């Protein structure tokens, strides 16, 4: 009897173990681009969305570079339709987080799929804008899941993998995607299309590592007084699970080189790191895990204090960027109307949706510069790397990021930049009219005529300290 019991138990445990491990693999080997036509069922809305998958292995190498080529071919074909002039394309790149990958079993795949559908719907049903702008979602897959049961013990191994993925092929892949989306004959990243990059949790860590390389390369081209258009229109790190030490280096580079990112004095974020107030994973679990992590760098003492008022490097190594008060640059304030939002603030209305039709704004927020709480840091974070806490109305916890309020948030940033057509409801409330500046003359080496300039912020290097 005892032998039978033991055999049954062993067989049970063995079958569980065999099915629990996830082997890193390419989930879209043959076909990695898809076009889906959704019907309105209350969950999805009537719209067409294009999806592309680009997958990387645990060392950060692409499983198959053809996936990138297919994604670029898709964007190019949509941008330059046969027999028609160039059209704008909205490209949303998403880097998933821990306990996810690019398989259909992954919650992030479905969350991103639904979010894309809602983004397409919000773009196509709002205002009087172009209802045909194609929406392309590029899902960056990496082995973020080790077991199906999602044990917490995989944290350290997945963090190492996330670091490797961020330093691997991804930077080059993103650069190709951004060039395909925005490159024109007269300059890099000048095109009429939109490119938004989003990284969630460990995906934020991956994206930050990959994208900072691209931005640093761009910043190296800047000379005092010169202007440049950044590679992506909006880079959002949502509930990022990465140490602040990564951002600190870039923040100091921005500070020391007096990099500004604005349009007519209206500041705009080059990178925005936002973490939900209700995110215990990055507020509590992440510092705890980092504290016992064998990968944590040795703590250095700063005497005198560093620029952000820290005595040691420990807070940068334990805390995430958006959870570190000294780095926070902006805050959300609930307002009743847009005119309560101070100059330089970004007005974020949240809309009720009913079967895909945007209705009224039910809540309104303003993202405004935060006054540092005493004791003030030596240097306030005035860089275009915006760091802030996100109210739970947008993201209630760590994982629930695929939500309509997040779409409203992204739309608000893009609208502030003067690109996305605003909904009628919002327009009625009186949108701040942005002055259109005449386009600068094309560079002498331009080989094609430059179309009318879009109203967009530019990267500038200040000349005064």
């Amino acid at each position, binding site marked *: 009897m005892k032998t*039978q019991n033991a055999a049954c138990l062993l067989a049970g445990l063995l079958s569980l173990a065999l099915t629990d491990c996830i082997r890193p693999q390419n989930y879209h080997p043959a076909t990695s681009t898809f076009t889906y036509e959704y019907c309105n069922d209350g969950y999805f809305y009537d719209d067409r969305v294009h999806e592309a998958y680009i997958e990387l292995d645990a060392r950060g190498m692409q499983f198959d570079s053809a996936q990138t080529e297919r994604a670029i071919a898709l964007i190019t074909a949509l941008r330059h339709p046969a027999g028609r002039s160039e059209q704008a394309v909205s490209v949303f790149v998403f880097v998933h987080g821990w306990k996810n990958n690019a398989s259909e079993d992954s919650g992030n795949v479905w969350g991103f799929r639904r979010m894309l559908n809602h983004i397409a719907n919000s773009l196509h049903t709002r205002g009087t804008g172009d209802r045909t702008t194609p929406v392309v979602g590029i899902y960056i897959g990496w082995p973020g899941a080790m077991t199906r049961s999602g044990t917490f013990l995989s944290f350290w191994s997945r963090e190492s993998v996330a670091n490797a993925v961020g330093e691997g092929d991804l930077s080059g892949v993103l650069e190709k995607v951004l060039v395909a989306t925005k490159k024109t004959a007269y300059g890099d990243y000048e095109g009429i299309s939109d490119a938004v990059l989003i990284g969630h949790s460990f995906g934020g860590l991956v994206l930050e590592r990959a994208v900072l390389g691209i931005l640093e390369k761009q910043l190296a081209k800047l000379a005092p007084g010169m202007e440049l258009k950044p590679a992506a229109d909006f880079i959002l790190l949502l509930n990022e699970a990465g140490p602040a030490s990564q951002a600190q280096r870039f923040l100091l580079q921005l500070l020391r080189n007096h990099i500004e990112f604005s349009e007519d004095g209206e500041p705009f974020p080059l990178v925005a790191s936002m973490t939900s107030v209700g995110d215990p994973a990055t507020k509590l679990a992440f510092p705890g895990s980092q504290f016992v992590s064998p990968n944590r760098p040795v703590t250095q003492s700063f005497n005198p204090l560093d620029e952000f008022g820290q005595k040691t490097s420990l807070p940068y190594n334990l805390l995430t960027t958006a959870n570190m008060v000294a780095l926070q640059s902006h805050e959300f304030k609930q307002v009743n109307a847009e005119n309560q939002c101070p100059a330089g603030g970004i007005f974020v209305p949240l809309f009720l949706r009913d079967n895909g039709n945007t209705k009224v704004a039910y809540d309104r927020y303003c993202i405004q510069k935060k006054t540092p709480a005493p004791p003030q840091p030596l240097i306030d974070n005035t860089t275009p790397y915006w760091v802030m806490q996100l109210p739970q109305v947008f993201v209630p916890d760590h994982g629930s990021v695929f939500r309509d309020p997040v779409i409203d948030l992204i739309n608000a940033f893009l609208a502030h930049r003067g690109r996305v057509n605003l909904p009628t409801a919002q327009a009625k409330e009186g949108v701040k009219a942005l002055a259109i500046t005449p386009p600068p003359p094309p560079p002498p080496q331009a080989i094609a005529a430059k179309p009318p300039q879009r109203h967009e912020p530019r990267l500038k290097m200040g000349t005064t300290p």
Partner: protein
Amino acid sequence: MRSRAIFVFAGCLCIVAARGADGEAQDKMSSAGSPGGAIPPAFLPPTPHCDSYSIQTLPSLDFEQRACIWASKLFTPTAVFGSSFMAMIAQTKNDPIEWGQGAKAYGERFGTRYTQGMVKTTATFLAGIVSREDPRPTPPPGYDCQWQSNAVRVRIGRSIARVFFSYRPNRDGSCSVRPAPARTIGALASGFVQLAWLPDRQKTVGNVARSSASGLGLYLSDSVFAEFQGTLWGTIGKVFTTGKSNKKTVGP
């Protein structure tokens, strides 16, 4: 003991079968789309299966998704640690005295508690299929038509009511309320199943009622916790702010 082992093994086989079905569906999905051409032809979107996002957000769940929720509840660290802890208490109290002390007795106590949990989950799952009620602790976002208020008393009330009733919005905007007996049936099943192994002197109605009430109490506490989870995390997030600057005067 043998019946318990068979129960565990059957549970594992069900999980393997469910995962196999998922894999097949995924293979079919991967082969969809167009092999050539820059813009693939438009297809109807694939159907969600057991991914965490769809299970949380879909307005209603099919049999496969319900089975996935059930399977995911059978083997959880919480269930293992909970059973271990309760077995430890019973071992300390030497309850039931007939089982004695030692590793074998602890195994019996752990096994019976774990099996009780599995029976509760399984009975709730089966009853939920018949009564077609939602197995999720909170309704999916956007599909909640219970009393909308942020008052603590109302929130406690609605989280308790959710264990016994199902609230769903109708197409016309009205709210339909239906009885949701699955959790109560699950709790009763967990109370009755212990008659299979308890010593004769403990096979009493009082014991069954106590055990069933404890099972139902767990469902109620789960529901209340699910209701206040976000508020709790938000409060913790606001209270524990980290990485503040130190005094300026120390600097250059």
